Structure formats: structure tokens, C-alpha cells
């Protein structure tokens, strides 16, 4: 029953009722309602419990400033911690209050109110510190009770992130914003307009004003129609909050209800030439005892409910104000036939125009509200003169208060603009801008309609270099205020809240000051005042006022806390956009990926977004049997793997030789065309950057290969050196990773397989020796055959163009069948390289290891005077610190597997480690577990026994050289 709906008026659609649930009960609202207005229409007054004391709370505001009523949306559009005032009502919506269990009416946490005196500001910091806050944190977080995150991602759509550019970005579609957009649009600029409400109009939606002799909303409709007709006005977004103002005029806009129903929310990153901030102003409350009771509401919010939603927020209202704006609300109440019992004005003198608006409503000037009766709903107020004399009780069910207006300076402040305290408005207004932005209308403290239209037009005219247009005629309003930072009349007892969301009272701020937290930022953190979902939109200035009053300094000297993004809460989905899973960061694949998947390969991520087959399981096999089968094929017959993801760069130019000498530790320039050489790259601080093979294709043409994961890093490294240190060197780097694919056939039968494939290249050991290459044909396809080996077996790396890769692969598998060929995954490759003691970046190489530790001193050229990292390695080794050196380990029990990463300690005792196991595999050649390890002074400790220390056991292992198979390397050279 919408028994509080006014019979006429409002911007709601009375022909479209919407059913919704709130805390388990069924209600009906109307299209155009917010959840808050629908609840008020149904006379639901108790809508929430507070965060700390679990005090009963109602609806306080009408927009994003709402501090009290947070709800959790349930069902398909599940979302946590939404202000009921910004949730657009939808059919079938289900919501429940946060902070209370089982319901706001019967809340178990309400017991906290009994101990309220025991939990002042800083209570948690002082109490829950022994032995550690972390012991108490989970329980307290649960008791605090804000909604949890939804358990699953939304089902019926996705999020999107989009970039846009604008000459002029106008934030807010109230009178100032619309006027600015019109002027900028007419000047032909690209205009982007974003407004946080469901419809354009801003404060005009909530008030009964006229523009050019007609209802103001007619002017709004005409303006929107004109903007829509201009092609250069590229975006007119409603229900879209500008939530961040970043560097170089980049602003974030969260569009919550895009036209495309598949898009849940859209996040815009707008780069604007000029920003016009027409973000309006928020009303702040007054600070008096029990100012948080359900039925105590901001005057402007009540005005919105009456005019916009045709909802009567109460039947008999009392107003409490220190400024003129509340009198306009009184007039609207009277026009709607809602009883106003009295106006309590803290000022001694009330302007005549305000008295006219009040009509016959009694005005108690120079008076304040010193108490509110009723716990779950307002039943009356106690009024007294400012000093405390002459108390009077007035019956009412609604108390509407106004403590003045705060320009919405959040975005201006985020842009690093300065704020200044304005005495006449008793609030902070924008001062000097730091970026190309200007505040207009309420956001600049220009609170009247006339000044909003004027400043909006002026800003746009200036930005576009056009003439000031004629402005539509409106009635001039005046505004005055006498600040009242808190009611301290004698007899005023009870909690006076500064921040309703975080339950911060005047006493809490006084306590913080008393305990030495006298900077406004410290007060905020100690009391939590101004934190949370509303970020203190109604309370912050009152907190500053309370500090100023207590310290006896001007508000300007207290200053504001820093405004940070987001201006209003933004869902993580909107920030992430469509960058979920593989959409924007897709996996890279080779022409053989499909074949691998068809073959049943278990795919691994191999770095740099490559996916490679880990192993090719067969029915009935264990994982180990699969890997063993693939390894045996390579050791005993022939195997093949797809080496395409390895990074490849072609280097051309006269100076490539000396450039490679500079970036590799060993000498490259002496290489002859047709030959390859394994090389190691260091960073300037002497750590291992990458390893790979360089091939000389011709006098001035080389091909450098890198590990899969480090291709981009090496590319950046080479370009940085060439562009910043050696700009005069003649070297051109071209990434060709995707231009060359390769299939590597390896194993003792590899040469027989090559013969079966058919080739015009002489592959005899003399014709194509180890570490050389030749161009020709293989299986009828143009190919470069390279003799390198990562497995320790005879290998031919067949490099072909990607368009030939799949063909080549299938011909290899076909020709290899008689030899029992197996495709080899990265698991088997790992076993094969461990058996040979070949290093793997990320296993044996971390941020401490150098080439000498790996037994590779031979690769650190002594002939070269200089190369990247040389000096640093020498410097570090001169310290004679104990080094961890690469060794092989044979577990004493051949069936003992040592977990990778296991620490080695002397005797397996509980004491500092002397190394760690970097890899441990089942060797198919030795038929036992073998491991590689980094061990202190390992090079000189061969044949010692060391111990891996596990949680519940130790494993003894014998130290040996880090090679378990063919130590002379005869097989790969064969």
C-alpha cells in the first residue's frame, strides 16, 4: 500500500507499478522511483541499522550523499552496499538492509547501544592490540556487518571499458551543466555530458522553479532535445557518475545503465580539452542530539521526495535551519498540503522573503532543536532558545534540517585544485585550478538558479571563445546563512552525530583532539569520520567545523581532508571492463595448437601468454608414465616438439657484431656465417637476463633467439641500448617470433627421420655439424635446418614459415611413425634438460645466481674489455662471499623424490639453509630420481652427502656434477 503517495504530481509513471521485496516483505513502487522513494511511499521508516552502535536509522538523503540506508541487492543483479537513494527501482528487485541481523526491526547487534559509552573513537585500536589485531579482526569485521561481495559474477551481461575524447567534458546536467553544454555545443565543439541521475535536470527535478516563464523542466526537455540534435554533442549520458579526475584531464565515468542490455555497466575514460564541473552542491545536516533518528531527514531530500516522487515523507513536519534554502521546501510542503508544525531557525533575524515563503507557519527564530523524541521513528522534538531557555515540545513525525550547502568539490579537488573557505557561504569553494577545468553553478558556490545559468554559460563561452548568449529569464533568489556548527544549548543531551554512516559523534572528535590527533587527516583516521560509502558528503564540513570550534581556529586553518577517487562507489566489474579472462589478453597459439588439442594435450601456460602442451596423456596412463614415454622416445628413438614460441629477433646492420659482443657475455662477432653460438645475456648489475642461441645469417645479418617468456624484455633491452646509448650504431632490430615457426626433431633416430622426410640439405655430421645451420627444403617445404640441442640428443630444428608449419608437422608425424615418434610436451622437455644439467631461467636462475655459480665460467669472456654486467659480476665475486653453486643430486634412496624448492640444511637439522633443490625429475636413463640444486660451495663438494629438510622428514642425497647423461655431449654432436 503506497499510503504515502501524493495524489498528483511527480516524475513517476503511475501507470507502471513495480513489485519489489525489502527485507523479505513485498511492496509496490512506481516506475521512476528509487528504492528509497518507494520505501517512503510505503511508509517504511526504519530502513537500516548503524555500523557501530546498531542504532535504528531511516532515509536521510535523496542521492549519493545518503549516509544511513545501505542495502544489498540480491538475485541476478546481486550487488553489495548500495545507497537506497541511488538504486533505481526495477520490477522484481530484492534488497535487504546491511548492518543488521535478522532485520532492522529486530537486530541482535543492537545490544551494542547499551555499551555505546564504552566504545568511543579509537576503541578498537586501544582494546584489540594484544597479542595482535589480526586475532580479532575477522570477528570484528563480521560484527561490523557491511554486505559481503556477491558470490558469483553477474550472469546476464558483461562490463565494458571504453575510451572517448572530447573538447569539452561537462559534468552534471543541472541548470549550469545544461547551459554550458548548450553553449559549447552551439560553438561546434565535441561535447561529452555525463550526469549521475536517471534524468537530466539536476536540482530542477527536485524543485518547483520556472525558467523563461515556463516550468523549469520544460526548459530542461528543450535543452536536452537541442543537445541531442547536435552531432558534435557526442555523448549525453544519464545514470553516469564521473568518479575520478586523473592527470592530464583524464576522467573516469561510470555509466550504470547503458542502452545495450547486454552491458551491465560501462566505464569511460574521457580525455578532455576542457572540463566544466557542474556538479552542484550537497546540503549538510545540523549537529544536534539524536539527529540520526528515523524521520530526521535533510530538507532538500524531503523536497525531492515531495516534488520528484510525489511522496509524503511524513504527515507533520518541523524544519530546523540556519539558512534560507529550507524556506523554499516549506513552501513546497504547503503547496502539497503537508502540515508544517514549525520552523526552528537558529538565526535571530529571518529575511522577509523567507518569511513570505513560510506563510502562516510559525517561525521560532534564534532557537535550536535540543532533542528528538522517539527511537524507531520521530515522535516529536524539543526546541529551546540558543542558550537553552524556553524549552517547548512539538509533536511531529518528521524533522527536516538544513545546515547549509557544500559545493561538490570532489572532482575539482581530485584534479589538485585548491579550496578556500568562503565566510558568506560558510563552506569551502574551489579556488585555483590545477588543470584545464572550471567549476560552475552550485559546485562553485553559485547556489541560485540565475547564477548557475550565468556561470555555466560564461565558462563554456570562454572555453570556446564565443560570445556570451542571452540567458533565459528566471526569478532571482537570495541566500544567506549563519553557521551553526553544533547545538550546545544547556539541556542538549544525547549523541549528536557528525558522520551518520560511521557513527562518529561530536564527543568522538573531541576525544581525538584530546588524545593529540589534531590534524584533520588524523581525526579522520582515528574516528573514521568521513570514510565509508558516502565519504562524508553530508558530514565532512561539520567535522571540520567541530574541530575549528574546539581548537578555536578558523575553518580555513583546519582545512579539508584529501578528496580521492572514487567520488561514488564503483563496481570492480566496471573498472575491469571486458578485460576478463582471455578477451583482451588472449593466449598466443601456433599453427600446431589445434593439433595438440585434438591429440588430447594437457596445455600449460608457458609465459608471454603462450600456451604449450605440457604432456600428451593416453588412456590408462599415469602422469609419470606419460612423461616417461615421451622422454624415452627422445632418448631411444625420436621425438618432436613445437619450438615456435621461442623469441626470435633479426638484427641487421654494420654494427651488429659489436652490439652482440656488448650484450652477450661471450664473443659473438667471431662467428662465421652459417654458424650458431649459445650465449648468455646479463643485466648491468650482473644478473642473468636470458640465454639463447645467436645465428649469423650473413656479414651484417643475424638471428637472435631468446627464451619464450623473456622475448619482450630482451627486445626492450636491445632497443633501449641502441636508442639511448648507441644511437650512432647501425643496428636494426626486427621481432620475427611470429614469422618463423619451428618443429624440432630430436633423438638418435632423428637423422633417419630426416632422410625419410626427404631433404636437399646434406645432414651428415660433416655436412651440417653441431651448432651450424643451412637453408634448403625439408619434405618439399622451404626450411632452415639448425643443429642445436636442448635435450642433449641429436636434434634438427626445422624452421619454416607459419603457413607451412602444420603441413610440416603432419609430415613429420607420418614419416616418424615407423620410428615410434612421440610429440613431446614441456614436462618431458624439463626432464630431458635436467638430465643434461641445462639451465632453466626461473629454476636454476634467480636474482642471486651468476654464470660462475652455474659452472659456466667459460661463457664469461676474458678477452672482451667490456660487456653488459661484466664489471658488476667481477665486483661481486671479489668479495669472496660464499656462493651457492649448481650441483647434481642423487637421492640415496633412488625412489625418493625431493620436492622442488626443498631447502638443504647441514645434516637435515633445523638450522640455516645451505642451498635448495631447483628441480627433481625421474630420469629415464638412470631409472631413478635425480635432482639439481644450488648448494653453498657446491662445485667443491662433489661426492659429499647433503640433506633436504622437509616438514616431517629429511632426504639424503649424494652430490655430483650437474649432468646425468652423456657428460661428453657426444650424442648431441653425433
Amino acid at each position, binding site marked *: 500500500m503506497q499510503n504515502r503517495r501524493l495524489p498528483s504530481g511527480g516524475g513517476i509513471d503511475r501507470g507502471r507499478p513495480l513489485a519489489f521485496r525489502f527485507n523479505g516483505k513485498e511492496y509496490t513502487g512506481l516506475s521512476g522511483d528509487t528504492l528509497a522513494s518507494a520505501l517512503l511511499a510505503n511508509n517504511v521508516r526504519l530502513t537500516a541499522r548503524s555500523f557501530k552502535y546498531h542504532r535504528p536509522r531511516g532515509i536521510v538523503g535523496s542521492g549519493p550523499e545518503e549516509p544511513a540506508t545501505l542495502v544489498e541487492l540480491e538475485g541476478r543483479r546481486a550487488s553489495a552496499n548500495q545507497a537506497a537513494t541511488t538504486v533505481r527501482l526495477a520490477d522484481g528487485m530484492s534488497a535487504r538492509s546491511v548492518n543488521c541481523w535478522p532485520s532492522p526491526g529486530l537486530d541482535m547487534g543492537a545490544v551494542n547501544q547499551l555499551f555505546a559509552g564504552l566504545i568511543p573513537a579509537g576503541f578498537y585500536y586501544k582494546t584489540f592490540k594484544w597479542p595482535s589485531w589480526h586475532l580479532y579482526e575477522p570477528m570484528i569485521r563480521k560484527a561490523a556487518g557491511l554486505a559481503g561481495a556477491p558470490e558469483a559474477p553477474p550472469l546476464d551481461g558483461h562490463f565494458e571499458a571504453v575510451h572517448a575524447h572530447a573538447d569539452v567534458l561537462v559534468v552534471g546536467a543541472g541548470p549550469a551543466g545544461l547551459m554550458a553544454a548548450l553553449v559549447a555545443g552551439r560553438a561546434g565543439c565535441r561535447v561529452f555530458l555525463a550526469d549521475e541521475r536517471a534524468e537530466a535536470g539536476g536540482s530542477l527535478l527536485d524543485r518547483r522553479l520556472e525558467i523563461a516563464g515556463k516550468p523549469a523542466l520544460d526548459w530542461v526537455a528543450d535543452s536536452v532535445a537541442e543537445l541531442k540534435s547536435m552531432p558534435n554533442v557526442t555523448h549525453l549520458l544519464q545514470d553516469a557518475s564521473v568518479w575520478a579526475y586523473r592527470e592530464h584531464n*583524464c576522467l573516469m565515468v561510470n555509466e550504470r545503465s547503458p542502452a545495450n542490455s547486454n552491458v551491465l555497466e560501462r566505464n569511460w575514460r574521457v580525455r578532455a580539452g576542457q572540463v566544466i564541473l557542474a556538479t552542484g552542491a550537497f546540503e549538510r545536516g545540523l549537529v544536534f542530539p539524536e539527529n540520526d533518528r528515523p524521520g530526521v531527514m535533510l530538507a532538500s531530500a524531503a523536497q525531492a521526495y515531495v516534488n520528484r516522487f510525489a511522496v509524503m515523507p511524513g504527515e507533520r513536519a518541523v524544519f530546523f535551519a540556519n539558512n534560507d534554502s529550507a524556506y523554499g521546501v516549506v513552501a513546497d510542503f504547503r503547496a502539497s498540503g503537508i502540515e508544517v508544525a514549525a520552523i526552528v531557525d537558529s538565526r535571530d533575524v529571518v529575511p522577509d522573503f523567507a518569511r513570505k515563503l513560510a506563510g502562516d507557519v510559525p517561525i521560532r527564530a534564534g532557537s535550536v532543536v535540543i532533542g528528538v523524541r522517539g527511537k524507531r521513528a520521530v515522535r516529536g522534538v524539543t526546541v529551546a532558545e540558543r542558550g537553552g531557555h524556553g524549552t517547548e515540545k512539538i509533536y511531529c513525525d518528521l524533522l527536516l534540517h538544513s545546515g547549509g550547502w557544500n559545493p561538490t568539490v570532489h572532482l575539482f579537488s581530485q584534479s589538485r585544485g585548491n579550496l578556500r573557505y568562503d565566510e558568506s557561504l560558510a563552506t569551502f569553494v574551489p579556488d585555483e585550478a590545477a588543470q584545464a577545468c572550471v567549476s560552475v553553478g552550485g559546485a562553485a558556490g553559485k547556489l541560485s538558479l540565475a547564477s548557475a545559468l550565468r556561470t555555466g554559460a560564461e565558462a563554456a563561452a570562454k572555453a570556446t571563445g564565443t560570445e556570451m548568449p542571452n540567458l533565459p529569464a528566471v526569478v532571482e533568489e537570495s541566500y544567506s546563512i549563519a553557521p551553526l556548527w553544533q547545538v550546545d544549548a544547556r539541556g542538549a543531551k544525547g549523541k549528536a552525530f557528525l558522520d551518520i554512516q560511521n557513527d562518529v559523534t561530536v564527543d568522538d572528535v573531541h576525544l581525538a583532539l584530546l588524545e593529540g590527533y589534531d590534524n584533520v587527516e588524523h581525526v579522520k583516521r582515528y574516528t573514521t569520520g568521513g570514510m565509508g560509502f558516502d565519504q562524508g558528503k553530508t558530514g565532512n564540513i561539520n567535522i571540520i567545523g567541530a574541530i575549528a570550534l574546539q581548537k578555536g581556529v578558523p575553518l580555513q586553518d583546519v582545512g579539508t581532508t584529501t578528496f580521492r577517487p572514487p567520488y561514488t562507489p564503483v563496481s570492480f566489474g566496471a573498472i575491469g571492463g571486458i578485460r576478463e579472462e582471455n578477451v583482451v589478453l588472449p593466449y598466443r597459439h601456433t599453427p600446431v595448437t589445434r593439433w595438440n588439442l585434438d591429440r588430447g594435450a594437457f596445455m600449460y601456460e608457458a609465459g608471454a601468454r603462450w600456451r604449450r602442451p605440457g604432456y600428451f596423456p593416453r588412456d590408462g596412463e599415469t602422469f609419470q608414465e606419460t612423461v616417461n614415454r615421451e622422454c624415452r622416445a627422445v632418448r631411444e628413438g625420436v621425438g618432436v616438439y613445437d619450438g615456435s614460441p621461442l623469441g626470435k629477433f633479426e638484427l641487421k646492420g654494420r654494427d651488429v657484431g659489436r652490439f652482440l659482443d656488448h650484450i652477450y657475455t661471450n664473443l659473438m662477432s667471431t662467428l662465421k656465417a652459417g654458424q650458431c653460438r649459445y650465449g648468455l645475456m646479463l643485466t648491468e648489475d650482473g644478473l642473468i637476463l636470458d640465454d639463447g642461441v645467436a645465428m649469423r645469417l650473413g656479414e651484417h645479418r643475424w638471428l637472435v633467439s631468446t627464451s619464450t617468456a623473456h622475448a619482450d624484455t630482451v627486445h626492450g633491452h636491445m632497443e*633501449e641500448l641502441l636508442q639511448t646509448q648507441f644511437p650512432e650504431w647501425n643496428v636494426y632490430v626486427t621481432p620475427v617470433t611470429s614469422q618463423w615457426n619451428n618443429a624440432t626433431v630430436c633423438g638418435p633416430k632423428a637423422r633417419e627421420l630426416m632422410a625419410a622426410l626427404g631433404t636437399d640439405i646434406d645432414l651428415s655430421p660433416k655436412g651440417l655439424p653441431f651448432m651450424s645451420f643451412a637453408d634448403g627444403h625439408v619434405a618439399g617445404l622451404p626450411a632452415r635446418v639448425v643443429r642445436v640441442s636442448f635435450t642433449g640428443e641429436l636434434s634438427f630444428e626445422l624452421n619454416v614459415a607459419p603457413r607451412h608449419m602444420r603441413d610440416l608437422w603432419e609430415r613429420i608425424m607420418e614419416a616418424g611413425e615407423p620410428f615410434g615418434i612421440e610429440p613431446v610436451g614441456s614436462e618431458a622437455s624439463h626432464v630431458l634438460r635436467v638430465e643434461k644439467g641445462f639451465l632453466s631461467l626461473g629454476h636454476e636462475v634467480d636474482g642471486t645466481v651468476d654464470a660462475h655459480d652455474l659452472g659456466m665460467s667459460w661463457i664469461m669472456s676474458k678477452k672482451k674489455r667490456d660487456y653488459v654486467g661484466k664489471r658488476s659480476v667481477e665486483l661481486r665475486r671479489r668479495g669472496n662471499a660464499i656462493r651457492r653453486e649448481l650441483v647434481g643430486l642423487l637421492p640415496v634412496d633412488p625412489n625418493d623424490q625431493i620436492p622442488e624448492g626443498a631447502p638443504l640444511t647441514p645434516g637435515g637439522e633445523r638450522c640455516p639453509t645451505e642451498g635448495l633443490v631447483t628441480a627433481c625429475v625421474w630420469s629415464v636413463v638412470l631409472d631413478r630420481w635425480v635432482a639439481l640444486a644450488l648448494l653453498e660451495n657446491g662445485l667443491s663438494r662433489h661426492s659429499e652427502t647433503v640433506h633436504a629438510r622437509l616438514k616431517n622428514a629429511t632426504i639424503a642425497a649424494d652430490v655430483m656434477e650437474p649432468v646425468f647423461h652423456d657428460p661428453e655431449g657426444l650424442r648431441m654432436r653425433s
Partner: protein
Amino acid sequence: MMLIPCPFCGHRNESEFTYGGPVKPDRPDPNATSDEDWVEYLTTVPNPFGPVQERWWHARGCGTWLTIWRDTRTHDIVEGPSDAE
């Protein structure tokens, strides 16, 4: 997100670039430098409260390594130390 001027592509979003760090002094000849000076070169990075010269790689663009002056207080990209506020 900053707007970074690339000498070839014009002003582009920061997300197209990879940060290359503040510009260090020229690499000294490692064979004619004391240990102290070498360590100083390696490990001491300019970190002023104000304009700093730094390198960015237009990795997701033209590939240029470029040098700009950025004011660390404001993210303003300035001509040089004298151009800052």
C-alpha cells in the same frame, strides 16, 4: 592516466608505454671507474621532488625510447627544470 608526447606518434595514453626509469648519468667506462663510482652509477637513481628526466618506451606503439621531463609533484610534463611551477 598521463598523456605522453611521442616524437613520432604525438600525444598518446600512458598505457601504450613502458616506464624506463629516470635518466641516469652516461654509463662510465667500467674499466676506468672506481668501485664506489660504479656502484653509485648502478644503484643511485635520481628521485627529485620536482622535475625529473625519464625514459619511456612506446612499446605498444612505434617502439621509440623517448625522454621527457616530468614533475613528480604534479605529473605535469614540462620542458625542463626551469619550466616547472
